[in-house]
């Protein structure tokens, strides 16, 4: 039913604009993504198969509401389902201190890559630590963001302060292995806070460097913990807090319109309360709250030449095992195991901003401190992206 409603919405949108094009209409863009994959993972049921994945689509509607504010909607079709990926208004001028306010559902400015839509990345696939700490859609949340330009005159600095529902943090990650009811999910009832300080420098005539520090803090779950092991003891209701600290940089050297070199890296420190099952004495089960620290990072290099070709490589590291089912000691609650990734790609962009082809290979290595051994996985992806309409270039 929901699919029909979205379909009807899209039909109305397009039929309206085709009938009455005028300057007051918003910009409408359609981005299509086709991925064909080939899996070489040992013992995988998918090994040797060519998978023609269901095409993905993003429909952007964007424009000024009035002289002071813009609004953007992004409806995505992924895995056979429509969803509202972004829907927000942005007050861009007229506020005290030249602040800007963004409100709605959107990609949160934690690091530099998260706010860029995946179709504009140089490579295929979300960085591993994004998937572990933010979820498969990245840090996409509902809330408010206040943005200020700092009074630095020789370089550009921006301070962002936001308050969000917290959907992207620890999404479905904290569940008890024994009793689903014992840990209440308090995401959304306890908002989270996100801050970012970004600075941008021009390096020589042709180089640009953006660096940033990011932080996020809040409750990622709430738990009734039996900290004594005594079954008659009333469980203690505890908040489980998390803190993310991030560092990021992006350097781009572009000596002419045909060549550029981009080096970008981001890292995260995840410090959070987690629930650990323990034993009191020999055989009385109990639960402890512990504080763990885990890490994630990526670094990539992309070289564009002759305007239409690029190649690059990326290294990823994250605590947590990528494909683990979310649980109290997995993914962002996992300080024992890690996943590493090596990615290489070749891109072909025959007509700038409208058509892109990428051949991407990703090799993942899983490190378990104890227990199971898992064979590394290798996935080849051939991607085609088209962009119809005036969807704006992403800022540096």
């Amino acid at each position, binding site marked *: 039913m929901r699919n029909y409603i979205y379909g009807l919405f899209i039909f109305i949108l397009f039929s309206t604009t085709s009938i009455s094009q005028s300057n007051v209409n918003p910009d409408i863009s359609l981005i299509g993504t086709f991925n064909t994959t080939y899996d070489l993972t040992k013992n995988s049921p998918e090994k040797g198969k060519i998978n023609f994945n269901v095409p993905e689509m993003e429909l952007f509607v964007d424009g000024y509401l009035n002289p002071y504010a813009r609004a953007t909607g992004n409806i995505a079709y992924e895995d056979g389902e429509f969803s509202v990926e972004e829907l927000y208004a942005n007050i861009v001028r007229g506020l005290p201190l030249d602040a800007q306010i963004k409100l709605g559902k959107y990609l949160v400015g934690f690091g530099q890559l998260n706010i860029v839509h995946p179709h504009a990345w140089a490579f295929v696939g979300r960085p591993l630590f994004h998937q572990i700490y933010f979820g498969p859609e990245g840090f996409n949340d509902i809330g408010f963001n206040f943005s200020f330009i700092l009074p630095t005159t020789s370089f550009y600095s921006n301070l962002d302060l936001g308050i969000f529902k917290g959907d992207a943090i620890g999404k479905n990650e904290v569940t008890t292995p024994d009793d689903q009811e014992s840990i209440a999910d308090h995401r959304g009832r306890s908002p989270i806070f996100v801050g970012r300080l970004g600075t941008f420098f021009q390096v020589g005539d042709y180089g*640009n460097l953006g660096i940033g520090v990011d932080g996020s803090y809040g409750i990622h779950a709430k738990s009734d913990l039996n900290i004594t092991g005594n079954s008659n003891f009333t469980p203690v209701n505890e908040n489980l807090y998390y803190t993310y600290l991030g560092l990021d940089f992006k350097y781009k050297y572009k000596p002419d319109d045909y060549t550029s070199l981009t080096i970008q890296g981001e890292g995260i420190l995840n410090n959070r309360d987690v629930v650990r099952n323990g034993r009191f004495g020999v055989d009385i089960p109990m639960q402890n709250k512990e504080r763990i620290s885990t890490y994630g990072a990526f670094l990539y290099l992309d070289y564009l030449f*002759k305007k239409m070709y690029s190649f690059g490589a990326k290294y990823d590291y994250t605590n947590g095992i990528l494909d683990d089912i979310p649980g109290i000691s997995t993914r962002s609650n996992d300080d024992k195991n890690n996943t590493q990734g090596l990615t290489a790609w070749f891109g072909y962009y025959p007509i700038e901003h409208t058509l892109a082809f990428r051949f991407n290979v990703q090799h993942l290595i899983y490190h378990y401190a104890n227990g199971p051994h898992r064979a590394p996985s290798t996935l080849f992806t051939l991607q085609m992206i088209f962009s119809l309409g005036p969807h704006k270039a992403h*800022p540096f």
Partner: protein
Amino acid sequence: MKKILVLLIILTSTFVFADVKVVATTTIIHDLVKNIGKDKVDVDYICRGNQDPHFVEVMPSYMLKLRNADIVFKIGLDLEKWLPQLIDGSRNTNLEVIDLSKDIEKLEVPTTKMDARYGDVHPYGNPHYYLDPIDVKIMAKEIFDALATQDPENTAYYKKNYEAYLKKLNTKIEEWNRKMTKVKGEPIVFFHSSWIYFANQYGIKIAGYVEPKPGIPPTPSHNADVINLIKKGGIKLIVMENYYSDSAPNQIAGITGAKVIKVPVGIYGMDGIDSYFQMMDYIIDQIVNNS
């Protein structure tokens, strides 16, 4: 001590508030503003002279330039599609945006509904009017008006500079007209559709373009068409902006014997090109001397 401080404050405020802060989207506008505003105007630019003005990356450093500006002058006609994002990012509510194409007689204005199959066509007309010096006179007038409105106290100063610039420009226009009579009616292949205003002014025949459609990179089949065109028409010159790759033009020239001329279409787009006069001198001399 107090007196010195007060004096310093007065002096600094005089310097700070005397200047009109201007950002020009291109270096040609920058040159005009510099000549008309002189030391009463603090002017900066966004797109470098050796950069394609259609594609400028949205950089925060450009937002910072606009944040401190009173006026931004643009070519308009949708050339600077990147400008609205920069203006939003600058958060400058007092910024005056002046479109210099307002009084230009536009060429190549589409008469039917355009879409991407026609390439990067500008829906309001071809924006490369700045290659016609007559249109530059209109730009200069627009700039003078805007500066005088922004800073009425110095109107006489701007007027004097504007008139002096116009006088020099008129002299150069006569000189360029004289030189260009030698190539009147000459067919030339250009790389991109930037030259319609220039060609109209000097009676040059645009025989074709290396780009199959505006903004679309050369293709082998179109190169073959251009080769035939050059051979059949006895065309001697391929003129191109120096920020485009000369790979396809050189290939065509290698087969046909035509000469490729790479010229700057922005100030500072090449060593020794520090003004509009020098840029036009260079373009015209190259065309005349190689025809």
